[in-house]
């Protein structure tokens, strides 16, 4: 009896939507391939190794943020305060160290701790107070902007110590940016965490069905808080690199980070419904976003075109992902 139904069900799954399946699993690779191909034909300068390295360097900050954002969106959370966090961390780096190399270590330590606390704060709002994280983190974003102003009284002082500066602009062998190495290292670590560890399984389980996760014996609230804290630390690391890029504290910038990071994660195939998605997807999503703006700048088109193109790519991929969902 049973087997008859199963055979038909399985058959439906295998034969139908092979195209959709391939496209939804590999759509993002196809998109980046086409992007590189088209940009290479239109303007060979874009695919010059030097420029490609530059693109990766510019991706490192948003890339690291996207790791945390992926963990959050996988578990039905989100953090829109990442931009304000990065700005705040930069100000903090300059303010605490005042550019003194001797204070490098303690500065990094404090900054990472602050990152964890901000993440945890977002987590408590979402997990314990059960406030929609989209709104909660929006509040935290504004709060952080205010605190940044308060801390600097409008004029940020100090500068970035050399070591942290190197995290942003330093290169191994005069070629490979340190920031890129840090980013890729973290991406690999978290990919492994997601695919090989119990923590990873719990992340997917909680995202897929939080209630069932609790009944299966997972400490759901605790795990979600941990994810928020980890995401905060990752954003702090991104903040250190950002600080290294700039070299001076500034109250502006970072305003694109929240939406760009969420866009990268969504382009990368992680679903808002939770429980589906991979770090690698988000990383390529982040590269696509930076690549686009680089390419359009090279061919002389402004930021407005980058935003339009990015919008189109999001719509295209979301359309494909929805196709994947509906054939189920």
């Amino acid at each position, binding site marked *: *009896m049973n087997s008859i139904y*199963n055979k038909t069900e399985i058959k439906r799954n295998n034969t139908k939507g092979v195209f959709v399946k391939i496209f939804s699993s590999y759509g993002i690779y196809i998109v980046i391939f086409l992007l590189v191909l088209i940009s290479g034909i239109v303007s060979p300068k874009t695919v010059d190794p030097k420029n490609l390295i530059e693109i990766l360097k510019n991706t490192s900050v948003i890339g690291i943020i996207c790791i945390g954002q992926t963990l959050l969106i996988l578990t039905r959370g989100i953090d829109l305060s990442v931009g304000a966090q990065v700005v705040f961390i930069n100000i903090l780096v300059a303010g605490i160290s005042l550019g003194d190399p001797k204070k490098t270590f303690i500065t990094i330590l404090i900054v990472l701790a602050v990152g964890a606390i901000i993440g945890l704060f977002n987590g408590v709002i979402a997990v314990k107070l059960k406030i929609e994280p989209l709104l909660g983190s929006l509040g935290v974003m504004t709060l952080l902007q205010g605190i940044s102003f308060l801390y600097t009284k409008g004029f940020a002082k100090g500068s970035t110590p050399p070591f942290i500066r190197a995290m942003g602009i330093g290169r191994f062998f005069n070629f490979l940016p340190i920031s890129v190495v840090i980013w890729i290292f973290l991406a690999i670590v978290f990919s492994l965490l997601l695919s090989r560890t*119990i923590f990873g399984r719990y992340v*997917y*389980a909680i995202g897929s069905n939080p209630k069932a996760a609790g*009944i*299966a014996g*997972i400490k759901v609230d605790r795990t979600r808080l941990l994810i928020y804290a980890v995401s905060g630390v990752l954003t702090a690391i991104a903040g250190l690199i950002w600080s290294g890029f700039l070299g001076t504290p500034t109250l502006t910038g970072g305003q694109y980070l929240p939406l760009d990071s969420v866009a990268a994660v969504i382009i990368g195939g992680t679903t808002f419904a939770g429980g589906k998605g991979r770090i690698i997807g988000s990383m390529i999503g982040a590269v696509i976003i930076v690549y686009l703006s680089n390419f359009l700048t090279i061919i002389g088109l402004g930021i407005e075109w980058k935003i339009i193109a990015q919008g189109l790519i999001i719509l295209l991929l979301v359309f494909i992902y929805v196709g994947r969902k509906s054939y189920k």
Partner: protein
Amino acid sequence: MENNEILKISNITKNFTGVRALNDVTMSLLKGEIHAIVGENGAGKSTLCKIVCGVYGYDKGSIIFNNVVLPNGDPQKIKELGISMIPQELGLLPKLTVLQNIFLGNEKGRAGIIDTKKSIKISNDILSDIGIKLNLNTEIARLSLDQQQFVALARVLATDAKLIIFDEPTSTLSSEEANNLFNIINQLKKKGITIVYISHRLEEIFSFADRVTVLKDGVLVSTEIVKKTNKEEIIIKMVGRELLKTFPEKSRIMDKVPVLRLENLTLKNKLKNISFEAYKGEILGIGGLVGMGQVDLVNVIFGNEKITSGSIFLNERLIKSIDPSKAIKIGINFLSSDRRGDMLFMNRSVKENISIGTLKYRQKMGFINMKSEKGIVNNKIKELNIITPNIEQEVQFLSGGNQQKIILSRCLIKKPEVLLLDEPTQGIDVGAKEEFYRVIRQLADEGLTIIVIFSDMIELLGMSDRILVMHEGKISAILNSEEASEEKIIKAASGLKTKTE
């Protein structure tokens, strides 16, 4: 067309992207009859009814209603002609009032202004006609499930329906509520309304339907006059083979070694002074009317809810505080009746669904031992005969029976001592049910203590070694299987004292 034939379905065929859901179905409905449609999950019952209502279009065939050919796949038009369906999810808007829901999409009024007076009059007429009292200004969310069903029915009657299709209306009702519904359906029949009644429960059908049609794998097996057939015959037609013995034999040896003991357990407003023992290797059935604290009881034992007072002992050791994670650790596991909501990770693989929760016991420095995990999962798949193309398949593509086995095997990886089951056979088809009974009995024979909630009387009597009956959060009887009878259980369930132990 015969004289009293109201609906004639001829040669209906329906394909869903490669799967034939209905194959050449021909049947007719007589005016004013109660016509039951039965069949296993996936037999095509709901599909057929949705085609009649126009929710789905069909590929071949024709449907004639009152000498009019029904349009193919036009629900609005078909509703106007007088055919309506009450789906399982009633489709009411919880924030709106009874009155607003009754006339949803069918508002009485002129020029866009609702004629409240007229609406109230019509509603009251309809409700008193079927003998129901409801405050028209109550929000739907405040009504009980059976009251909500009445609202859904009133809404259908407000459209002057001549043919009403009920899709498993009693699946969420207690037996008392169900009886109310049967009375109402009988009244509708007297008024000349034709009823189509989809159900899993054969008892219901034999208590009040006129004719019954059996569907199997999208094919109409036969239509019988209820008075001229019997349950066994219908089951054979549904399953396609004989179910000689539905329930496995009960265990004869019982040492009465208490594994789980509850003492004066109380949960605020839900459970009062619950005390009982569950023995090693027994199946302790929990019965009673729906919502009398049975589910709260298993939830408390599993740690889903915190007890107000009282104590729980496992192997004579007091369990101080308990949550699901600890319960699993000390050997208590739980299968909720709401598979999709409480148990399954639908978009994750068979492997992950089985191994989650016991990964802690299968790791090296935080890393999952993939090989050992795979081995264990494959073992369980073989042991419980789970049918899946591979272990990476997402569970949403498997049938209800297989999904149920997946969560059962999850609970069994780390052998529990006590297994709590809430309606384990709900929503799985007859063949799979039988297999499930065998598995449960086998587990008990291996020494597991199984505490299981059954709202189906036949299951409760057929499977339990002892039966604990609950009424309003208290235990009203504990019966041994020899002394237990339907009558005694019903008595105890309705609160009449028959305490025997």
